């Protein structure tokens, strides 16, 4: 302070056109880069599969659909595959990925813990438990239901399970402690263990057939994608992705600590509720249609943080787009690698995620030294 010359802010403002101070964020650049990457992945994913569609064919199909050209030089079969199977599946991957990514990033911010993700507050385990319930009961008592609305029954019930478990974890944390984030985390772990045990018990009682569908569900799959499921998930993920970035300033302040954040105007109780509700909306809906897909919510925020910095303004949006990219790619691999069969996507995300995650940790340590 003694040596440096100081200009009053008022003076700087006077000739502000000449020396604009750079905004400390690479928001625009990041959004463009990632969106472009996502677009490439979506096109790649839409073209790849048991029936491959070339870029020109894809262009013709789309133009035909939009009514710009009437005479598409594409086999009818390819057009149908694209419209009924490929496109909804890609859309679902984008939505689920975005929901998981942004939930992971915001929960890591809320818990000020880089290993936090949606599994910790009971979203995934609650959804799993309820889905397993449906799978078990369906076969025994609701054979009829299975025909008509079996798939949607699972989605609907598992969303309720996700919301209910999260609610219990949150209420429990208020009863046992003062509702601090550490208490929520510990309650989440306790409830997870309990719910896991019941799920385990159900699995133990399950028949071979049920066991197969339970396992498949627990490992996650986008195989059930249809326009209906896309429409069912879209509003939930949409709300989460649109509203969450408004919390980025508060989540940034939380980095300073709970009491410092409060002294800068953050109401912790409100913030906790907002983040948990929004995260549960996105993840609950995702888990409901695609099963539990691990690792995306954990790893994507770390990648974005390493590439674009820890500011939640970029981190939340980046994690949503990043999650969409990764899930689109993972889904493409999952349905082509053992074609015509499918590999559960959860296996892939964990298989590729783990070494990559370790690499990021190693890289972070190297940077610090």
């Amino acid at each position, binding site marked *: 302070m003694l040596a440096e010359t*100081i200009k009053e802010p008022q003076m*700087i403002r006077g000739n502000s056109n000449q020396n604009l*101070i750079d905004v400390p964020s690479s928001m625009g650049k990041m959004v463009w880069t990632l969106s472009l990457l996502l677009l490439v992945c979506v096109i790649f994913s839409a073209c790849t599969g048991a029936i491959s569609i070339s870029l020109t064919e894809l262009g013709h199909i789309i133009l035909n659909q939009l009514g710009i050209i009437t005479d598409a030089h594409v086999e009818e079969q390819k057009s149908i595959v694209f419209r009924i199977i490929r496109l909804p599946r890609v859309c679902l991957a984008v939505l689920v990925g975005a929901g998981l990514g942004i939930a992971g990033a915001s929960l890591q911010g809320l818990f000020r813990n880089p290993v936090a993700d949606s599994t910790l507050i009971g979203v995934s385990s609650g959804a799993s438990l309820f889905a397993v319930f449906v799978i078990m009961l369906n076969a025994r008592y609701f054979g009829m239901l299975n025909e008509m609305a079996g798939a949607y029954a699972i989605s609907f019930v598992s969303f309720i399970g996700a919301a209910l478990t999260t609610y219990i974890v949150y209420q429990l944390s208020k009863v046992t402690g003062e509702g601090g984030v550490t208490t929520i985390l510990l309650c989440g772990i306790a409830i997870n263990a309990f719910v896991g045990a019941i799920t385990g018990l159900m699995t133990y009682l399950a028949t071979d057939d049920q066991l197969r569908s339970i396992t498949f569900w627990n490992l996650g799959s986008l195989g059930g994608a249809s326009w209906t499921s896309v429409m069912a998930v879209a509003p939930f993920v949409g709300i989460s992705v649109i509203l969450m970035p408004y919390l980025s300033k508060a989540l*940034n*302040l939380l980095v300073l*600590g709970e*009491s410092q954040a409060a*002294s*800068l*105007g953050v109401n912790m109780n409100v913030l906790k509720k907002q983040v948990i509700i929004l995260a549960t909306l996105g993840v609950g809906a995702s888990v409901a249609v695609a099963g539990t897909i691990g690792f995306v919510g954990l790893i994507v925020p770390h990648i974005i943080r390493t590439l674009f910095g820890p500011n939640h303004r970029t981190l939340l949006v980046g994690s949503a787009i990043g999650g969409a990219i990764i899930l689109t790619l993972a889904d493409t691999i999952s349905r082509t690698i053992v074609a015509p069969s499918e590999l559960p996507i959860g296996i892939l995300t964990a298989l590729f995620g783990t070494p990559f995650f370790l690499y990021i940790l190693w890289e972070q340590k190297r940077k610090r030294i």
Partner: protein
Amino acid sequence: MIETRQAGYEVRSRKLLQDINLKVLPGQFWAVVGANGAGKSTLIKLLSAEYTASQGSVLFHGKDLNSFKLKELARKRAVLAQQNNISLSFTVQEIVLMGRYPFYETQPEQRDLAIVDFCLKKIGIGYLKNRLYPTLSGGEQQRVQLARALAQIWEIENGLLLLDEPTTGMDLLHQYETFQLAKEMTGRGFAIVAVIHDLNQALQYADQVLMLKEGKCYASGSAREVLTEENIKTAFGLPVQIIQPENTRFQIIVPDVPIMSESHYQK
């Protein structure tokens, strides 16, 4: 500006603070001194509205402190806590900009960024602007946090600054500069309440001193009235001498105990 009336704070019937009467006026620099566990940090937390007084009341600008919204308070006073651990690699500029968050919605304006730059230079850490916070030394981190608190209240008139051991980890020059800055701020009508461990600094820089002992106000008033040999001996349990060396302007507090010889330790 901020005032406590018979304020007390207790946790499970353990009284951490009792009957605190304090009246901070604009332009005053209050030092809170006392032994470990005397309730200094608790008092700062009462004043910053992190804790709610269990007895008595805390008034801010003449109104009950609890009637203010957190957002309103954030635009009127800044708090610097004792511990500031940040593990995420935010840049120094981003951290200081957080002090401006209460003043803009989504995008910082040029003015906010200008204030950040100004406060960084004011604290003398303009050159750290683009460094990553976790890579700084403890003293540098503390100065960044101070710049953040300063950025928060820089524009407002008669702001209140609550500091819990502001000079922790700073070297001699920067301790001195921090207190000079505090003086400058009070000259502009700010009020400062700071927990200070070094009694010599309290004696040199503070206008008013509040001495706490076991959660109660032991003495309060001007620095020279409060920081006397007897008061310090009772509050801290250490006999001291207050001397005035010939060529200094200030009085100096030194421990009044025989220096233990090496043979003393060998026993």
